[in-house]
């Protein structure tokens, strides 16, 4: 139904029920974004004081800095690597649960097994890699004992590799749940028909399962991309300070009270994120998918 055809009382009831949500989102999402936008045009005295002014100085600083390009490249590298690994693992885990596990109770149990860590602390799950990846950690100990290496690998912890491992560990669940959800909705008669028509199992996956999971993949991608691009503590801790991302640089700027520069970089990052998310949303009507 088009909004123009909506009867007035439906509008009233709709707004009545949704008003508490709006009353939270306006002061705690819309207003803070506007504050950051305003701060990006302000001048600073360098000690955290802001002068209401209109200057593009912060943007010019950010855009002219060679560091900015480096930060974006690092962030994009982490995002793409994490996206590829979470997508592959998430897709096949969901595929296994939906199409290969015969007992439905077992499938539900295994699905829950995958989701439980989502409800525990991310920071704790991240630091839990230290006893494994560290210089004297389990992996190095095992490799040394087997004689594969003579000296402990230092690249395991406090490196880009550790950052990607931590991201994939935390975020694969964001791929599994939406892909699982769209796979479970595929009408099984469709697949039977395809088999009867002589399709191979690979054809079924390529021509039926993947296209019908597009909305799940899109939703998972939005989660993974926005979380990795907005993250700073995984990069800071797991790289041991060796790598930086756009938001971890933002965090450092805030730490030294460079609010306008931080705000300008945040506005740019938000624009990039909005562009990516709306590109994804063009391929799938997210609202239709969710409320279906």
């Amino acid at each position, binding site marked *: 139904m088009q909004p123009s055809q909506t009867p007035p009382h*439906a509008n009233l009831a709709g707004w009545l029920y949704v008003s508490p949500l709006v009353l939270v*989102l306006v002061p*705690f999402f819309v207003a803070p*974004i506007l504050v950051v936008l305003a701060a990006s045009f302000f001048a600073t005295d360098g000690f955290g004081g802001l002068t209401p002014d209109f200057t593009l100085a912060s943007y010019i600083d950010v855009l002219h800095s060679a560091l900015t390009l480096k930060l974006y490249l690092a962030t994009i590298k982490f995002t793409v690597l994490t996206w590829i690994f979470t997508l592959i693992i998430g897709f096949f885990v969901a595929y296994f649960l939906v199409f290969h596990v015969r007992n439905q109770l077992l499938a539900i149990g295994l699905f829950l097994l995958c989701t439980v860590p989502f*409800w525990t*602390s991310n920071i704790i799950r991240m630091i839990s890699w*230290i*006893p494994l990846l560290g210089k004297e950690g389990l992996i190095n100990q095992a490799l040394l004992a087997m004689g594969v290496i003579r000296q402990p690998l230092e690249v395991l912890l406090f490196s880009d590799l550790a950052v990607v491992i931590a991201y994939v560990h935390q975020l694969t669940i964001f791929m599994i749940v939406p892909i699982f959800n769209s796979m479970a909705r595929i009408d099984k008669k469709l697949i039977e028909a395809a088999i009867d028509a002589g399709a191979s199992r690979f054809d079924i996956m390529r021509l039926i399962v993947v296209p019908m999971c597009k909305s799940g993949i899109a939703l998972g991608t939005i989660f993974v991309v926005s979380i990795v691009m*907005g993250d700073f503590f995984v990069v800071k801790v797991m790289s041991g300070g060796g790598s930086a991302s756009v938001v971890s640089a933002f965090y450092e700027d805030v730490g030294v009270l460079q609010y306008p520069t931080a705000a300008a970089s945040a506005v740019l990052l938000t624009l990039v994120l909005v562009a990516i998310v709306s590109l994804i949303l063009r391929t799938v009507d997210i609202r239709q998918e969710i409320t279906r």
Partner: protein
Amino acid sequence: MSAVLADMRETVAPATTKAIAPSKGGRPWTFYVLAALFALYVIALYGPMFCIYILSFQDIRGGLVFPMKGQSLHWFVDLFTQVRTGDVKGSFDRSIKLAVIVTIITVVVSFLAGLSFRKRFRGDTVVFYMMIGSLVAPGLVLGLGTGLLFQALGLNASWYTSALGAQLSWTLPFGVLVMFAVMSRFNHVWEEAAYDLGASRWQSIWLVMIPVLAPGLVAVALFGFTLSYDEFARSLQTAGSLNTLPLEIWSMTLNVTSPSLYALGTVTTIVSFIVIGASLGSIVLIQKKRGSGAKG
């Protein structure tokens, strides 16, 4: 969650197996490959966590890596008695209180928003995208904005005002999305039947919808509690002078290099597991009660 499970029960059960993998007899080779992948994934998911739980039970000689040095509860005692590790007890207390407040608000507001989105209304798309925006916006940036806003208005940032709001901007979109999934499986016939029998709008919500949707509401509560209890990026600039637990853990990762960090991880994970267990248990209980009621 429960909606997803219900969905599974309806669709996966009878037919799946027939098509891609036969329901009886030999399994295709892909089954074994994918089963191995799944097992590896689960091991990688839980393995590291169990390492730190085990390492937190070392005695005073304990370090951050294996091998295990002795067994004791030393680091748990250390955690709650040493000043050096910060105010763990206080921040633990605050985080639980905050999570309870966030849970109550999240359940009520998400339920009402779920009701409103069942029909189109003027401006619904704006509200919807505002919600998605709040979900995907970098938490640290929103937190800084909220902090600066409070500063500009001359208000003091504290865990029960600015941090509460900042956390709601994170838990509510999740709560409403879960509510969407739950509501889309609600059969409107029941509601109409209630109206036909003379129920008021309030009665139909309180006596029909809420009992029917109870498992979904428990799922929303689970999201509200755990997302708030573990929330970090949005609280960092908004919690004011008193830390919540994740902020305490964050400062410990930067300056504590003893197993008391692991002990804290064990303690907070136990709390999470109790909450998850209680929620899933009550969902199962509700479903069971309903099943036996229908039969009897």
